[in-house]
């Protein structure tokens, strides 16, 4: 009986010691500086380490990237190593489209590095030539972050050559052409959408846009302007290289 009591005391003491050490250890981890990137090995090493599970390791790296971004949003880091995570993900799984798109968005908006973002997307476009999301994102970032409407029109045109994203890209392309004052080009694009879309809501939007452009053209003609400025150029086809 006495022996059992002793064993119980020893066991409880050990459990108490373990719990205390665990708490101290956790506090140490909390106080330690941000180690997110050191937790991700160098890319060539990761490639070897991944063995036949490259996509799974890429997923893990992507989840770490998302967490790293989350920590940045909460003031935990300066986002300077985000590119490293992105490179690791894209090297391990070059067809991970979502990583290119979201990664580039973070680089351009929070990182304020549009060139790096576009470079990531270009790499994505080379790995996924059939993707419509990547050229669309290039156009979107170029327009919103860079303010380069001409380049954005070009990228939207490129996205419009991909069957899956054609309507959305054409719509943006038409919108920007109108903003640039290229009324004829905008009219051609909206007209294309109007006649080829199966989406009833988009058909209505296209019809209303056509009516507004036609009104603008009539107004311009009434003012005696024969020229449409840059809009006299043929419509952007979007064909070519990114």
């Amino acid at each position, binding site marked *: 009986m006495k022996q059992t009591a002793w064993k119980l005391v020893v066991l409880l003491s050990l459990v108490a010691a373990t719990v205390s050490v665990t708490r101290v250890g956790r506090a140490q981890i909390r106080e330690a500086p941000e180690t997110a990137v050191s937790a991700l090995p160098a890319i060539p090493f990761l490639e*070897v380490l991944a063995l*036949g*599970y490259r*996509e*799974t390791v890429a997923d893990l790296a*992507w989840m770490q990237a998302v*967490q790293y971004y989350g920590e940045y949003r909460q003031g935990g880091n300066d986002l300077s190593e985000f590119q490293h995570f992105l490179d690791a993900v894209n090297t391990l799984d070059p*067809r*991970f489209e*979502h990583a290119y798109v979201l990664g580039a968005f973070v680089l351009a908006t929070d990182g304020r590095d549009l060139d790096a973002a576009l470079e990531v997307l270009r790499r994505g476009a080379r790995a996924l030539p059939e993707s419509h999301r990547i050229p669309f994102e290039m156009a979107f970032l170029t327009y919103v972050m860079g303010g380069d409407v001409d380049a954005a029109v070009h990228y939207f045109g490129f996205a419009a050559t991909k069957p899956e994203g054609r309507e959305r890209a054409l719509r943006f392309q038409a919108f920007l052409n109108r903003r640039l004052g290229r009324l004829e080009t905008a009219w051609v694009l909206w007209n294309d959408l109007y006649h080829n879309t199966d989406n009833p809501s988009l058909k209505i939007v296209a019809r209303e846009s056509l009516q507004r452009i036609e009104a603008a053209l009539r107004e311009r003609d009434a003012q005696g302007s024969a020229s449409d400025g840059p809009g006299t150029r043929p419509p952007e086809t979007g064909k070519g290289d990114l």
Partner: protein
Amino acid sequence: MFARVLTIARWTAVEMLRERILYVVLLFAAVLVASSSVLTTLAPGAQRKIVIDFGLAAIDMLAILVILLNGSSLVRREMDRRSLDVLLTKPTTRLEYLFGKWLGLVSTLLVLTVVMSGILALSVEAAGFGWQARYLGAIAGTVCELVVIASVAVLFSTFTSPTLASLFTLALFVAGHLSQGMLKMIEAGGGNTLLERLSLAVPSLGLFNLRGEVVHDIAVPPERFVVAVIYALVYSITALYLAALIFRRRDLR
């Protein structure tokens, strides 16, 4: 001959299914596949990819783990128990015995893979991503890989201890996945005939890895499946024959 092989295979499978480790692995698979659904909250926008990636990789990794933990000790266990002595007094050759052991191990792995695939399919359906028939292509690739690794484990188990057999099998599994990259490095370095020849002994496991293609909706040409199946069978038969040659020379007294 086939009746004897099938009898050994059946009892090997029964023995393995009685092992608790298989049930632990099944439970682990269920937890892992379920947790992949939880992990998706960390990667918004890529949920489907992550669930499928993790599920398919988990099936492969756990089956490999079963081979390493159980497959590598198949022969040694019977030697230690002396049940092998009794078995070999019957009209059974050592090749038949090894072939039966391998077939039993492969059958067990097949059962395990089917169950884990079922869990994955349920998990994918429950997450609302929709199970697709093309995922079976990646699972078929995994089965081919398991067939090869099982034969390698049986080969090593004929001449060394279970621990070393597991380590050797693991080493060959790692080498098999690195072989393609190593070959590229050898070619980039101007080529090395000896290394190139040595690399032929290492199973080319990259051939069986169709997970990337499946996850990214890339069509896998049927020829690849045909080549993978033929390669898996030829490599396994060669490894088993080599195992029989080694095993024949062993004095079991």
